[in-house]
């Protein structure tokens, strides 16, 4: 176990979702609201300050349910936050995710013009995130959320996105997810062994030093910015049948198919990392939280075991030799699943909408989320792969390639299409509990 120092973080000020792992199994929903009347929006913030869950004692057993809140920049405008404060928010947050589409690869089928309403239209102002261990607990937290926005006609409900953990405990692509969140200095918790790095709290929470030794740029006044953070929220449709067919068409047997999939993902379906289980899946390893993230890539500099282009190695290259500094590009991820699973063995699309609600949390939308998306997943130069993109999540167009280093000659797959399509997304600011009170009366 990696022990961190006593918590200097103000845990009772930080929203719970920032540090708390989700329960397993889990069920939940995102409720999206539009603020038509600033007074109503401010009342909502005041009520939520008393209702949202903080990160206090976050390492204790899971709360049965968790209520948290985020705001888009349009949401802050709708609350009529003074311009002096609005102008202190980072540029990419102010622009919003849709405006950043070209840069992060949301083009073609993933372009904002094709997103599901209300995403990217400016109609999403507030998100209420409700996460629970079961339906009964969800009902309780739904009631809390209802109390928060009840009898405020100046608020408009605009969308609801349900999510739940599949019975397999895996993503729609069939892989165990949620492994490998960073260890945060001063969080007071013990983390399962990882690559050995312990990251400065300021990478994930505003108001604390980050990996550069500086305080991250923070919205002002300090009461508004401190203990807050940013979220990139994305609804990602997974083209599971197309992915399975691609694996099938490029393999000679079920065993080959399984190995090819592991080369693409960097882990086997159980969650066992390829680098620790090079030949075949090891479900006991995958299920063991003390072992399934305890590795580095130093033994595999050429990618002969885990390709440099494998999804997990791209998203966190750990100690791999790359262009740039891995410490500056870590992400807290809180992804969840939506839609029905595609039954095993089916290679034809059934038309159902299924996928992942990807949630990034961190202090730097630009050098964390946008960097990883644009430089590590939609590019290959950082790791010697030129224009090659991530096979699983990259913005491929049918002409993509995937390189598998092997002896004596590398194997290269061609004709990679897009297996994940963006259906919508927003950038949110996750204020501290004190900031929610500030937002209830921003003119004071």
């Amino acid at each position: 176990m990696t022990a961190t120092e006593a918590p200097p973080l103000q845990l009772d000020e930080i929203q719970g979702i920032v540090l708390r792992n989700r329960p397993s199994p889990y069920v939940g929903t995102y409720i999206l609201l539009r603020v038509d009347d600033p007074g109503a929006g401010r009342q909502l913030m005041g009520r939520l300050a008393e209702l949202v869950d903080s990160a206090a004692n976050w390492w204790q057993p899971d709360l049965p349910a968790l209520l948290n809140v985020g705001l888009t920049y349009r949401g802050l405008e709708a609350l009529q936050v003074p311009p002096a404060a609005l102008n202190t928010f980072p540029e990419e947050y102010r622009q919003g995710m849709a405006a950043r589409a070209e840069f992060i690869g949301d083009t073609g089928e993933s372009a904002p013009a094709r997103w599901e309403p209300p995403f990217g239209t400016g109609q999403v102002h507030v998100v209420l995130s409700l996460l629970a261990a079961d339906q009964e607990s969800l009902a309780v937290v739904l009631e809390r959320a209802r109390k928060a926005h009840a009898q405020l006609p100046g608020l408009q409900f605009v969308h609801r996105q349900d999510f739940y953990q599949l019975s397999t405990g895996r993503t729609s692509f069939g892989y165990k997810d949620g492994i490998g969140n960073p260890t945060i200095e001063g969080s007071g918790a013990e983390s399962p062994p990882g690559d050995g790095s312990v990251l400065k709290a300021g990478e994930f929470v505003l108001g604390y030093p980050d990996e550069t030794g500086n305080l991250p740029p923070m919205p002002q006044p300090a009461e508004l910015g401190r203990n807050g953070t940013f979220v990139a929220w994305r609804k990602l449709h997974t083209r599971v049948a197309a992915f399975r067919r691609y694996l099938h068409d490029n393999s000679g047997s079920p065993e080959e198919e399984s190995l090819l999939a592991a080369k693409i993902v960097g882990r086997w379906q159980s969650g066992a990392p390829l680098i620790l289980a090079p030949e075949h899946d090891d479900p006991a390893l995958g299920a063991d939280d003390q072992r399934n993230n305890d590795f580095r890539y130093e033994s595999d500099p050429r990618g002969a075991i885990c390709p440099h282009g494998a999804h997990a190695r791209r998203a966190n290259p750990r100690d791999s030799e790359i262009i740039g500094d891995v410490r500056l590009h870590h992400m807290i991820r809180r992804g969840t699943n939506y839609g029905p699973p595609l039954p095993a063995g089916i290679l034809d699309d059934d038309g159902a909408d299924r996928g992942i609600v990807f949630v990034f949390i961190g202090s730097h939308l630009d050098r964390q989320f946008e960097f990883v998306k644009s430089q590590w997943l939609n590019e290959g130069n950082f790791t010697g792969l030129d224009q090659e993109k991530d096979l699983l999540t990259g913005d491929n167009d049918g002409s993509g390639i995937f390189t598998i280093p092997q002896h004596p000659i590398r194997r290269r797959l061609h004709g990679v299409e897009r297996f994940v399509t963006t259906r919508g997304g927003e950038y949110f600011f996750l204020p501290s509990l004190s900031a929610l009170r500030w937002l209830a009366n921003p003119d004071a």
Partner: protein
Amino acid sequence: MTAQSSARSATPTVTRQPDGLGKRVGEVAEITVLFDAKPGGAERFRQNAAKIQDDAWHYEKLVGTVHDFRVAFINNDTQVIGAVTYDGDFKPYMADIFANAAPWFDEMFEGVAEGYPGATDPHIVDWLATKIVEADMWYASNPTMTVEDTAKAQKVTQAFNALLDTASS
């Protein structure tokens, strides 16, 4: 012009960087900055020039995306130009560059460039952005070759020649 070069594919298009700073062609981009020099700044720089030059190999290797970088004092040492050719987008790697090569930038510009906030200052990128002068013309001979590609191509050529040498010996 040779028949070979005229048969090449269409002329690459030079555009502005997607994030709006400097010019871009293919994988390669340029940026030029113009600072006012502090009184005595040029002398200070030149006193350290040999070390700055030596350190370049170390720090640029860490950064890994820079093709070339030059610094020149102009107008009777009252101004200083920095010009870089590098790979990819401008903003994404700035944090990495200043996090890893801060001592080198400070060695070059502390006490030299007017208003220089220091490479570890959180607002260094914003300050730098105000100093950019965009090229009005820019030519890059191999716009699809990154620094990484060039190094790899060199290795492949050397290995291939070694193979041919072995086969013919």
